[in-house]
């Protein structure tokens, strides 16, 4: 399988505090990679480097290299709008905009320069179907997206991210604010979609990682400790500390 994203020696520091001490890892296309580790280990920070969400933080300094399809995303020539269209993101808290469901999805499409109404309609329906929320919202497309339940809002946000046809979707603890039933619906959605997209997901839920991810990376204190296939990582981790964490002995 082809590598879609590769990072080389990525360091990130806020002022004098270095949060990432040189992360090098490759992500394969159409796989779901889980980033695990205790709170504050740098996994979310690293995730946010991949679509340059850390750029606007005060005093942040990022060195090293992240390539998306062999293009250095931190090069001054990179168009942020393009990058974020290719690399979408879903957050921990559902973040629907205060618009209708339809406009939430259409917003990104219009931004990407799509003006054809029929095409927008079709993409809205397609992405809501992909996110497994179409049946629940198809009669309420003009209703405010914030009036739905948390799980529904999160799937609307997934649909919004998918609508612009990204190649990679970053998920920052997408189910940690949701109840177990909504969480399992989202897991199922991701499983069904991973043949079309590449997912990189930060999670605190070890069972979730073992259920749906192909690859697992274990972070601690700003270092990538171990990275391998999910079955290897859970069944025969190379390092004691990985084994301790994955078996719930700390964290």
């Amino acid at each position: 399988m082809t590598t879609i994203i590769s990072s080389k020696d990525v360091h990130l520091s806020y002022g004098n505090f270095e949060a990432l001490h040189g992360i090098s890892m490759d992500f394969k296309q159409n796989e779901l990679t889980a980033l695990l580790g205790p709170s504050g280990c740098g996994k979310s920070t690293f995730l946010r480097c991949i679509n340059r969400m850390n750029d606007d933080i005060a005093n942040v300094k990022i060195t090293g290299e992240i390539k998306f399809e062999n293009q250095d995303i931190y090069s001054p020539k990179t168009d942020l709008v393009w990058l974020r269209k290719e690399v979408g993101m879903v957050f921990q808290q559902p973040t629907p905009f205060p618009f209708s469901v339809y406009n939430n999805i259409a917003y990104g499409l219009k931004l990407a320069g799509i003006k054809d109404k029929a095409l927008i309609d079709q993409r809205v329906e397609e992405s809501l179907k992909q996110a497994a929320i179409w049946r629940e919202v198809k009669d309420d497309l003009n209703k405010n997206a914030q009036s739905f339940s948390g799980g529904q809002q999160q799937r609307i946000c997934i649909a919004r991210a998918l609508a612009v046809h990204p190649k990679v979707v970053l998920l920052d603890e997408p189910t940690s604010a949701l109840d177990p039933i909504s969480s399992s619906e989202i897991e199922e959605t991701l499983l069904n979609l991973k043949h079309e997209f590449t997912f990189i997901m930060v999670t605190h839920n070890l069972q979730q990682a073992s259920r749906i991810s192909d690859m697992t990376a274990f972070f601690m204190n700003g270092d990538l400790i171990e990275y391998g296939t999910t079955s290897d990582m859970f069944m025969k981790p190379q390092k004691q500390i990985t084994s301790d964490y994955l078996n719930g002995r700390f964290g």
Partner: protein
Amino acid sequence: MNPKTANKVATAGIYALVSIVVIILIGILGNILVSGVPHLSWHFLSSQASSFQAGGGVRDQLFNSVYLLILTMIISIPIALGAAIYLSEYAGDNWFTNLIRTTIEILSSLPSIVVGLFGYLLFVVQFNFGFSILAGALALTFFNLPTLTSNFEQAIDGVSQAQRDAGLALGLSNWKTIRGIVLPAALPGILTGLILSAGRIFGEAAALIYTAGQSGSTIDYANWNPFSPTSFLNVMRPAETLAVHIWKVNTEGIIPDATIVSAATSALLIIVVIVFNFGARALGNHLYRKLTAAKAS
């Protein structure tokens, strides 16, 4: 005292304190409305104020108050919104931002009579506007800007960081995120700030006495040419508002029915503020729905 009794005492205390607030408010409002509303009549609303005899109305004062409010809002909303967006979205956490915030706080506690005298010296005398609606509107803008700016800033700050992140993650520029997502989300709060300061402006007298003047010229509501001295739209004409009228009939008025006129005017002022309050809320809800759940456009 055992916890149960303590809880009961605290609850009783809180109820007693809130009753004091409610009683005072109902007392004031009730007193004004009861003594004023019986004297409100179509004649009172539609006739000019009288200088000597009883039976004058407040037609021009009512119009002037509304006109001044609208002009002040037209001038101050864009400025306050711009400043609030800067403070909330762009300003770094440094001495300069702190200086701006401190200045705003100091300005918002400035007595309105000081703003009025400042407006008199600057607009009326220095710029030679004379006693005029324009001078009044500018003085009210000075008076209003600090509060409006901090109200707007709070409303914008209230929009969660997650919403901004989501906008940026979709590839929106900073400005597009602010305009397309943050401002619509902040609209209810922005509107509340607007309503609060509109009430303050509408009831303001001290800042206007030396700027918009205390007497009205003869005005003609059929004259739509804003440059004509008799036109009701002319911003260079002196204009007395409802609040100034109340002050005036009570201090130097020589009309025999001064008590009745001021009671009726006070009631009218409060009613207009209430109507404005509900009107602005209805408009705001309509706007919010339009912005947030509109048909695809």
